[in-house]
């Protein structure tokens, strides 16, 4: 491949990976986070292809695409607001930009909501038993399943919402950011300050065949260890997950 093509591909995939990872942390909706992460992993697989490790690339995609799908299902099953619509319901008109536009109430149990766009935007709906549950569309309260009653709308910033603190991150965010930044910076400094060797020639070979042979000959132990690790992991997961 000519250097130009290679560079563009590399930059494309690198930004894909980094952007995917970053967007995953920032987006409110769980499912979207899953998809972004899956995008990031696929671009990493692309990087592997660039590094001509095609077997690992294929393995990476297979592992993570399946894995992420399951992860998304779990997130939806377990997080209070998978759709990310409960939080930060700013007055819909001004901030209709891309990212926050999808702030609709997404209710697992309710049927198809307000197909007709009556002027529900100003009125707010709340649950008699859980005053802190606020939603701008009729339906059932996620906590106790009771019918939501209309009430006067109130300005909800992301953080000031009483009771149900739905923020995606907890109060440790600031120091976390600092630590993350320092970690990245130190590694980056280390990486950039050394003169790494240039890439030697690579005979075009069938990596699947060779890795297969290596796994069963020289690296038998690694292969067996990995196998045992997987089996114990799975058994452990099944036992933990079993419903009494």
């Amino acid at each position, binding site marked *: 491949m000519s250097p130009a093509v*290679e560079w563009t591909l590399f930059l494309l995939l690198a930004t894909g990976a*980094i952007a995917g*990872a970053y967007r995953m*942390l920032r987006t409110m909706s*769980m499912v979207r*986070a899953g998809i972004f*992460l899956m995008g990031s992993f696929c671009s*990493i697989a692309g*990087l*592997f292809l*660039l*590094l*001509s*490790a095609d077997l*690992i690339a294929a*393995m*990476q995609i297979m592992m993570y695409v399946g894995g992420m799908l*399951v*992860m998304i299902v*779990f*997130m939806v*099953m*377990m*997080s209070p607001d998978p759709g990310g619509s409960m939080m930060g319901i700013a007055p819909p008109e001004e901030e209709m930009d891309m990212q926050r536009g999808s702030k609709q109430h997404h209710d697992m149990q309710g049927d198809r909501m307000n197909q007709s766009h009556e002027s529900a935007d100003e009125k707010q709906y709340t649950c008699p038993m859980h005053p802190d549950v606020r939603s701008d569309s009729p339906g059932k309260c996620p906590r106790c399943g009771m019918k939501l009653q209309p009430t006067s709308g109130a300005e909800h910033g992301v953080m000031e919402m009483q009771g149900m603190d739905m*923020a*995606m*991150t*907890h*109060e*440790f*965010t600031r*120091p*976390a*950011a600092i*630590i*993350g*930044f320092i*970690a*990245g*910076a130190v*590694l*980056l400094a280390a990486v950039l300050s*050394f003169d*790494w*060797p*240039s*890439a*030697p020639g690579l*005979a075009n070979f069938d*990596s699947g065949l060779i*890795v297969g042979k*290596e*796994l069963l000959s020289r*690296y038998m132990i*690694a292969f067996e260890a990995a196998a045992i690790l*997987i089996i114990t992991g799975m058994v452990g*997961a*099944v036992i*933990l*997950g079993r419903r009494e």
Partner: protein
Amino acid sequence: MSVPLAAYLAVSAVLFGIGVFGVLSQRGAVMVLMSAEVILNAAMLNTIAFWRYRAPNDFAGQIFALVILTIAAVEMAVGLAVMVMIYRRRKMQMVDKIAELRG
């Protein structure tokens, strides 16, 4: 291979940073798990980069990457199992609310 090794390592460093930030900041336990996956991937990218630039005919690098992949898989499986257990008992999985295991 006009793209230098440093570039790949830089990408993995940034990914590592993002992963660390994710693990430490996210409230949802599943999100923490996914950020951990990002860190593991950063490590794997490093391994493959070094394999390609240092010793492409000795396939130890790729096999090491495979092992990392297995670890990631098992980590996901067991992590989700634990998540299910916590959720069943506490009906929520916000990391900052789960803090009983202390002195």
